[in-house]
Each structure stands twice: as C-alpha cells, then as structure tokens.
C-alpha cells in the first residue's frame, strides 16, 4: 500500500495584484508585473500553487543620496546623479523587475522640491524604462500629502504602486490611487492588527481598491529585529490562507532602506577587523536580509546594491523550481 503523504490544505489564497499598465490598459509600460496569488506558505508548491515569482525593485532617488555608504555609491557609479540614467542602468544592467522611485528631494530639509519638480523627474524615469514603477514620497506626511496627488495625476493610468498609506494618513494616497488608477502600499508599524484595520479603512473608501493593495508590514534588517517582521508576515500569510480577506494581500519590504543605515553597512574593516571587508559585508547584509524575508512570504523586495540584487534573483530562481508532487 502506497504511503499517503499528509499535505496541509488551505481554504483560501493571496490576492493577485497587477502592477503597471501597458498601452492596452491606458499606460505606457512595456511590461506589467503580477504579484501574490500564493495558495501555500512560501515556496511549498507541493501544497499549493505559487503562481507568481517574488520580484526585486531597485531603489532610485530624485537627488544624489549623499548619506549612502561610499561602497554602495561606488557600486552604482556616476548614474546616481541622474534618476533616469540610474533607473535605466538598474533595469538593463542589473535586471531590476521594477524601479522604486523615492522623492527624497521633496523633504523640506533636503531641498524641499515642488510637485512640479517631482513630476518632471517621474516623467523622465517613466520614459527611460518600461518596467512598472513604485513611487514613494519623502517620508514626511505633511509634504507628501502635497506631492502624491499631483504625481499620481501626472501619471494617470500607469498603475504605479503609490507609497505609503498609514493608519492616520491614508486618505490622500488612497484617493489619488482611486482617481488616477494606481495601486497602493498600506504600511503598518510591525503590527498585524493595524495592518488589517488599515486595509479595512482603505476598502471603506473604495471596495475595488482591495485588489490593488500591497501590504508593507515594516521590516527590520538582519540583526535588528527581523524576527518580529518575520512572525508578523507569517501570521498575515496564515490568515490569508485560512480565509481572512483583509490580510490576503501581497507584501512589500524596504530592504535597502533598513540595511544601509546600519553600522554593519558602513563601518570600515580597519575599525572592526573581525567584521571583514565592508564592501563585501554590507552587500551580503542586504542579500541575507532579503533572503530571510523571501522565506516569510515577501512578494516585492526593494533593494539597492546590484550584486545583492543578483544574488537574491538567483535565490528566487532556485526557490521557484517546482517542488510539487
């Protein structure tokens, strides 16, 4: 008698979210990306389908990222002074699936750029690359509320992934996504209850937006509490698979943003001889953080270092090898 292997049966699955729009759908992207749709825990194809591979978005700033560690800036080269060239290099040379454009220059303390300035940069990046775009503000809510609407309007129909909606500041981004046909990042502070509540609040503004939400559970870098992020993501995914509609969204993580501000990413080998060469170490820190989050169900990894991206994409290739039986 054949041995019957016990497989977990799940009631439900993660929603699929399409990012970007080609000319057929009112945009100008040359390709779109589909994320989510998982019907099992990460990469357990033998228990349920993993129809879409996780993707890597590479981060591009509208201004030169002066604070980034020297070894990261030199890995990227001169392009960091030109967002369009930077984005093009990420896609064509480093194989980025998406570009995450961050308008850091709109920060009142870093140049206070106007909505018009930001729109010009967005347009230049949209014409430089054909992949779908993620658009982040500067991170200061008051200023972001003045630029996200105009940015969304200027790219109407492109189905950008707009960041970020938070529990006490979600209406302007959600309205912009509704009005100009974009998707939305719902960000919660490592808190499953707020993640769920925020999705409810957004869906109360517009039910169809439920299929255009990507959850940002807020992740931490390796060594800085990644296990908290991991357990929140795991709980959300279990919820999604057992039928919780309000947690059944794909997830996005700002890996580069967390990793590259930590001392492991910049302290030199002469200061810490036991830590090894800083260029190799910092790159590996980003790759290792991303690899761990893949195992927790991350769908979109926002990253910075080309070599780390290469390693993670290789890892995704391996994990996506069909293991169903």
């Amino acid at each position, binding site marked *: 008698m054949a041995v019957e292997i016990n497989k977990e049966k799940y009631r439900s699955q993660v929603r699929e979210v399409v990012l970007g729009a080609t000319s057929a759908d009112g945009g100008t992207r040359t390709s779109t990306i589909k994320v989510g749709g998982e019907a099992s825990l990460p990469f357990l194809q033998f228990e349920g389908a993993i129809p879409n591979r996780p993707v890597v978005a590479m981060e591009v700033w509208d201004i030169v990222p002066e604070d980034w560690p020297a070894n990261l800036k030199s890995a990227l080269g001169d392009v960091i002074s030109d967002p369009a060239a930077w984005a093009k290099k990420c896609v064509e040379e480093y194989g980025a699936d998406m570009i995450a454009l961050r308008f850091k220059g709109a920060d009142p303390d870093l140049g206070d750029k106007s909505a018009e300035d930001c729109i010009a940069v967005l347009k230049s990046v949209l014409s430089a690359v054909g992949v779908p775009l993620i658009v982040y503000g500067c991170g200061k809510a008051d200023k972001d509320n003045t630029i996200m609407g105009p940015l969304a309007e200027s790219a109407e129909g492109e189905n950008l992934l707009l960041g970020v909606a938070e529990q006490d500041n979600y209406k302007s981004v959600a309205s912009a996504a509704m009005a100009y046909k974009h998707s939305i990042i719902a960000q919660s502070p490592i808190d*499953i*209850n*707020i993640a*769920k*509540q925020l999705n409810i609040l957004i869906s109360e503004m517009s039910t169809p937006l439920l299929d255009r939400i990507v959850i940002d559970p807020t992740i931490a870098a390796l060594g800085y509490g990644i296990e908290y992020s991991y357990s929140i993501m795991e709980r*959300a995914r279990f*919820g999604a698979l057992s039928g*919780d509609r*309000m947690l059944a969204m794909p997830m996005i993580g700002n890996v580069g943003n967390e990793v590259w501000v930590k001392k492991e990413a910049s302290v030199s080998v002469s200061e810490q001889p036991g830590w090894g060469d800083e260029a190799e170490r910092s790159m590996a820190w980003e790759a290792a953080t991303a690899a761990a989050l893949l195992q927790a169900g991350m769908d979109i990894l926002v990253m910075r270092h080309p070599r780390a991206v290469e390693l993670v994409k290789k890892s995704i290739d391996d994990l996506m090898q069909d293991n169903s039986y």
Partner: protein
Amino acid sequence: MIMIGERINGMFRDIANAIREKDPGPVQEWARKQEAMGAGYLDLNVGPAVADRVSAMRWLVEVTQEVSKLPLCLDSTDYDAIEAGLEVCKNPAMINSVPAVQEKMDRVFALAAKYDAEVIGLAMSEEGIPKDAESRVALAMELVANCDAHGISIDKLYIDPLALPANVGQAHGPEVFETLRQIKLLSDPPPKTTVGLSNISQGTKNRELLNRNFAVMAMACGLDSAICDACDEELVAAIATGRILLNLDIYCDSYVDVFKSQNQ
C-alpha cells in the same frame, strides 16, 4: 463559529405565504439579509403546512440560489424533499438532519456520498434525546461510524448534541457542553459540531440573552456552527468576539464588521 441562517423556514408566516404563492421576494430578501450579517450557510425549511414538500424544497433551492452563492442547508425530515433539493443545488450542500437510527442513517449518508453533501447528525435515537453526555456521545459515535462506512470524510459530519429550552430542560445544559467537548475526541479528524441555537430559549422571555450566552459558552467547548438568527445584531457581535477570544480570527478594531462581510 459559523452561522447557519435559520430564517428561511415555513414556520414563519411570510415564508409560508411565499412558498404557497410562489413569490420569491421574501425568500430572496432573507437570503440577502442573512448573508450580509455574515451567515456562512442558509437553512431552507419548507415548514409543516406544505402539501408537496418535494416541489416546495426544489423551488426554495432554486430561488435562493438566484441571489446567494452561500452553501444551502436543506432542512427536512422528508428525505425525498432533501434529495429533490440536492438535485438542483449548484454547490455542495448540507443535509439537516439525521438521527442515530439505522435505516435513516443508511438513506442519508448514501445521499451525502452521492451529492458530496455535509450532514448534520442528531445525538438522538428512536428512544428520544438522552439525558446525559455519555449517551449523547455514544450516539455521536454511531453517526461517526456510519459516516465513515460510506467513505465520507468525518469533518463533513456535524454532530448536534441537541439543546433543550432552558426553562424546561435546564439539566441538559451542562450535558450539552460536556458532549461538545467529548465529540472532539471521537476521531481524527474529529466531527464538527452544531446546535439549533434558538431551541435554548424557546418559550422564555429572555430569548436573545439566552441565545447569545449559550452561543459563546458553547463556542468555548468547541462548537463549530449553529443554526441561528443571523439577523440578531448582538448575537452576531458576541460570536465575532468569541472568535477573536478563541484566536480564530486576527484582531482588528473593526472585527465585527469583518466577520459580517467575510462571505461577500
């Protein structure tokens, strides 16, 4: 806990009239209302006064399916009427119900296997409802064995330990709770459980209070579902809260609304 909405029942005058006059209006209105309150199944009962139960059940199934995708719970002691309903169900349904009486189990479990239906099994025999938990569990075991003999997965069997009105059968309360706990030890996977919730308050003056207290106490003993008034706001809120406290749903501030909208 899953709510099986009880309102489409010929015991209610509006449904009895609707069946008699072939007016789908009231049936479909109650289907929508119960679904909007978070019901997971809709119970359909043609009631006692109908002459042709077979055609009435078929009609109820057809008009309910026009407005709701929820699985249906076909509620009758007339198994010909149940089979007529099963024939026209678009999705797998639930049969309500069968007692632990051999010839009835033979018929009902065969129907369940044929139509891929779930079954509510009553912990009672020809001799009626037992007084204690032990005898109820023994009858539950007979239902489990018969279900298994027909090749039906045990988690498609819902055992109803049978709750009696609090004003006449008060001593049955603790026995019902104990039965609910023990049923989960009968097999792996264990059978599921259900009760006719409104029975507990039949003929009393505190119906809603009794119903919702019984519901949450029974949930703590492992109750999986109940045939109940899904339009009782406070009952629904109490059940949604019970699910949070049992860690069955993930908390958020709007958890009651989430519970209500879960099947939409």
